[in-house]
């Protein structure tokens, strides 16, 4: 390698042919390393969100209680079930609860479900909302998010336009606050 002496120290000049592949390989290595690090961060962040949103699995207990209440009210309030013995009503409630639990995958352990949630979330398979629906009536989370996005973008884009325009002209604020000679002082 060619080298030259500058002020007593030696600086190595890489050959022109060697420079690009060396820079590229360093860049690729960096991109790969950084990409993996960021992906791991996303996985941890999303899994934590899943755990917190589900209250560490405690939400299942709340959901089951909600289902029991709703199913109990529906069966006991149905005029067709009037006069049936209490044991028969209990059996019907239990049957419907099992069906509802299976529909919401509550029959699987939370640990297993949380991993499934994570895989779906990372592959952007966002599934269906449980209560919220879009204006068009869809329960698909993607449809709901896409429907709400323009409103947020509109608001935030205007706000960004307004708040960034004085930032780029902050020189004028410096002039205004410190006088015209701020740069010369």
């Amino acid at each position, binding site marked *: 390698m060619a080298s030259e002496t500058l002020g007593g120290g030696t600086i190595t000049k890489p050959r022109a042919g060697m420079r690009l592949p060396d820079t590229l390989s360093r860049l690729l290595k960096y991109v790969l390393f950084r990409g993996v690090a960021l992906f791991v961060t996303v996985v941890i962040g999303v899994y934590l*969100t*899943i755990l917190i949103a589900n209250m560490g699995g405690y939400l299942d207990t709340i959901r089951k209680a909600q289902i029991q209440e709703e199913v109990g009210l529906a069966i006991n309030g149905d005029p067709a079930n009037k006069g049936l013995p209490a044991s028969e009503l209990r059996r019907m409630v239990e049957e419907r609860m099992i069906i509802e639990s299976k529909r919401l995958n509550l029959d699987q352990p939370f640990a297993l479900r949380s991993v499934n949630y994570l895989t779906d979330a990372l592959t952007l398979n*966002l599934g269906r909302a*449980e209560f919220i629906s879009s204006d068009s009536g869809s329960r698909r989370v993607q449809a709901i998010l896409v429907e709400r996005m323009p409103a947020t973008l509109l608001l935030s884009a205007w706000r960004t336009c307004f708040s960034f325009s004085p930032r780029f002209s902050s020189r004028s604020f410096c002039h205004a606050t410190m006088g015209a000679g701020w740069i010369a002082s």
Partner: protein
Amino acid sequence: MIALAPTSSIPAWFYGIFLILFFAAITHVLPFGGMVDAPVPEKMSDYIVSLLKHMILPISALLAHSIFIAIYNWRTFFLIYSSEDYVEMAKAKGLTARTVERQYILRPTLPPIVTSFAFTLVYLWQGAIILETVFAWPGLGRLLYQAINLFDVPVIVGNTVLIAYLLVTSVFLLDIVYALLDPRVKVGGERRA
């Protein structure tokens, strides 16, 4: 302007409540909330006017919250870079004030500007949760608020994943943009013999 910087510690929705109180409840010049009038105007021009009218208060609240601290931050950055040795050297060389500002002070402030802009873009997607709720603005922030209240886990996770991916992409691109903007940032170390 600088003395007003502490006013940014008040959240935007708090300003929003006062703006609603004054401009909607007392003076009746602007609407309380929502995105357009009800019933929705049929003519496009009326729709746009209605939309703009509804946007005035939420945008004013967001600006009141962020503008003064932004000015303070940028003033600080400019002052830091204006006292660097190479700026003194440029002044000693007799360069014009405009050249010194543009090439010796503005250039090094670009990385913080780009960072701030990139994170503003992420914030732009995320929406303001409480502000949108206060103004009944039908955006992603309000959706998240509703989803949390209803324990609608798929919507909460979906919203979070979207923001996480956007944030990570911004950070990743920022790393590359930094290296392009700031010659001091290098990928890996220079080999020395």
